[in-house]
């Protein structure tokens, strides 16, 4: 085995472990935010409660968009593995479009809430809600930037060992965000009506 490939594999293994460890720290970060939200959920300061303003149908479409985007991200990785570069790029574009759709829905929900006078300044509950959901949204935004870079990279380099590794890390991140969203959907949106 030639030693250049060897070193690359070693490096990739480290990057992968490091990335998993990073995701673990992100789990702790979101866990802290969830805990905060749960503590403050009923601190509505005479403002609206979660049941009053959180609409699960909105979140339902966001969930569909994100789940679908996770699927296309998986397709992209598989396609690249089988050297179907154009399919991979297509699937990635699909992922980003769905991600952007998710983000648009989220932002319009925020705008609507603020428009009705329910901004993050109104009550502790709303502070917790906006912060938790927006933190996830910021992660999605980072994912969108990362995904665009990946498209450019794969476009240039094709299906190489390097591009496959980079794309795998991206899809790991994207699936992770999907998972976090499932928790948000259950705890925040469905939980509002329990």
């Amino acid at each position, binding site marked *: 085995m030639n030693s250049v490939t060897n070193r690359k594999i070693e490096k990739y293994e480290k990057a992968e*472990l490091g990335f998993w*460890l*990073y995701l673990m720290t992100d789990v702790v970060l979101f866990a802290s935010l969830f805990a905060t939200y749960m503590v403050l959920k009923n601190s509505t*300061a005479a403002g609206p409660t979660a049941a009053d303003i959180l609409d699960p149908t909105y979140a339902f479409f966001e969930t569909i968009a994100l789940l679908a985007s996770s699927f296309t991200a998986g397709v992209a990785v598989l396609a690249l593995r089988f050297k179907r570069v154009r399919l991979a790029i297509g699937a990635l574009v699909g992922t980003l479009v769905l991600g952007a759709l998710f983000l648009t829905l989220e932002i319009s929900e925020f705008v609507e809430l603020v428009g009705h006078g329910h901004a993050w300044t109104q009550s502790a509950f709303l502070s917790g809600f906006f912060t938790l959901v927006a933190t996830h949204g910021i992660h999605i935004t980072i994912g969108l930037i990362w995904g665009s870079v990946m498209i450019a990279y794969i476009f240039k380099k094709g299906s190489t060992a390097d591009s496959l590794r980079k794309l795998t890390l991206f899809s790991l991140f994207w699936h992770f965000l999907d998972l976090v969203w499932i928790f948000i959907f259950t705890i925040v949106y469905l939980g509002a009506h329990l």
Partner: protein
Amino acid sequence: MNEFIQFILGRLSIEYFPKDPVTLGAAIGMPLTVLGLVGLITYLKRWNWLWSNWLTSVDAKKIGIMYIIVAIIMLLRGVADAGMLRLQTALAANGAAGPFSTDTFQQVFTAHGTIMIFFVAMGLAFGIINCVMPLMIGARDMAFPLLNAVSFWLFAAGMVLVNMSLVFGGFSNGGWLGYPPLTGLEYNPGPGVDYWIWSLQVAGIGSLLTGINFVTTILKNRAPGMTLMKMPIFPWSVLVMSVLIMLAFPILTVTLALLGLDRTMGMHFFTSDAGGNPMMYINLIWAWGHPEVYILVLPAFGIFSEIVATYSKKVLFGYKTMVWALLAIMFLSFIVWQHHFFTMGAGANVNAFFGIMTMVIAVPTGVKIFNWLFTMYGGRIAFKAPMIWFLAFVVTFTIGGVTGVMMAVPALDFQVHNTMFLVAHFHNVIIGGVVFGFFAGMMHWFPKIFGFRLHDGLGKLSALFWLIGFILAFIPLYILGLMGAVRRIDSYSDPTWQPLFITSGIGVLFIAGGIGLFVLQLAYSIWKRKQLRDETGDPWDGRTLEWSVPSPAPHYNFAVQPVVAERDEWWRRKQQGRTHVERSEYVDIWLPKNSPVGLVIGVLAGLFGFSIIWHLWWLMAICIVAIIIVVIRRTLIDDNEHHISANELFHEAAKASR
């Protein structure tokens, strides 16, 4: 027009320039010092050297040295702060005015605690770990050398922000943990608390990345043959510390971010109105804070384990129990945080649970102390300076542990919580444990990094001064605490307290003397470096791999990748007479190239913090975009290594051994 100016300048304004003479002096002195340094480097034409050898370096040892330099400079500032605090309490008795205003006093104790924990203790820990951990596990470098540089520069950026507050805007007055609602917008509208938040946030992200880096390094970069149970105890302590960092620091990130959101976006997490819950802050900050004290002390434990075994010329007693003790502490340190607020109304059952858990955590700690003592028992002990630090540690740390267990009893804690007794406790464990440990480590490993030993006698004298200073400064605080003196007071009416406060102030002078002796030791040893030269690479008859390479350690650490058969591998090789490496064993190696990315990200993150503190939203946006661009550009570079041939390695090694 006015609006435009406000947009550009945020809330920067002349009124934030310091007015009282003390801070004004610092505000003028500090920029002058920086300018002086810049001038000196220019005059000596050293910019190139600085840039290519240090600022862009990704070598863990270089990064470690930079951490230690920053930490020692910050130690000087932290001790100066402490001197101011004790000067005030020595004088301001019985209605007399002290030299400092209440507001200055509050800023000084906040800065003192913040600097000592985040920029001295953490800095020394990361510094020493970077210098020796890769060597001890037989690795050439960290798993992510560039990320390591990024971490350092984030740490440095945080440090700059703390010190900048002295010149412009003032620092937080909310204590080192910044409890709201005092640190909320309502009671603290100025930039001080924001300085506190963002300097810690920036440095804290650096620490988080460091934790990830250390864990990956230890799991992936160990020498072949070194199973986890054959790994020396110091790397073990670093592994556990890093896992704690990974689990605890995200909580700090969130806590600071929420407080920041309260302050800049008008949210209500911790406010006293609109449903905010200040108690939640106390819980969150201690869910990070208690693990943090173990993050600091575990590497010190690891250092002592190596030192005791080396200078007793014996195998470390109870290696396995040491590892299990570390793991037990790792687990337990997450279920004791509530002992920091027994008095805040949790109720008897909750207090009882956390009190008992706190007492339990003293058990693995005690196990370690006994293991060290048993290691010494029957050994041929060389009483070099690191051993003197160790002995000082055993005495002081044990006292600190005992007072900790006392406060773990909620009923007793109601008496002494937030008094000088508590202050004495944590200085007892932090100075006696963490600081003594890091000084011992610096003296022990100095020759490996710099190629010459530190003068032993001066090191011992420094330890003695620290010990005396510590006893004088903090034993009176225990008594004062029991007499009812609360922490953080800048004046008091009971005249019987004054002699104790004066004694404590004298103690600070002794500690300052200890630091002075340390600086003298450095200077003298540099002057006499020819006599103190370490020719062998193994000045203390060491046991672990770092002593198998020449001193100073080459930048690639090991010319030939070592293969490990035993825990004390270097000791084994010496016993079996197998210290020689054949020419045929040399192979080519690749090392990461230098890169300015760390420095650039550090500068941008510092500016980012600055822009939030002063509400310069345009600058904040620029910084975010710039950081994204730098990161993207970097991830697209696949070729970032340079090559050293087997031949070069062989010749360099031959030269070093001559």
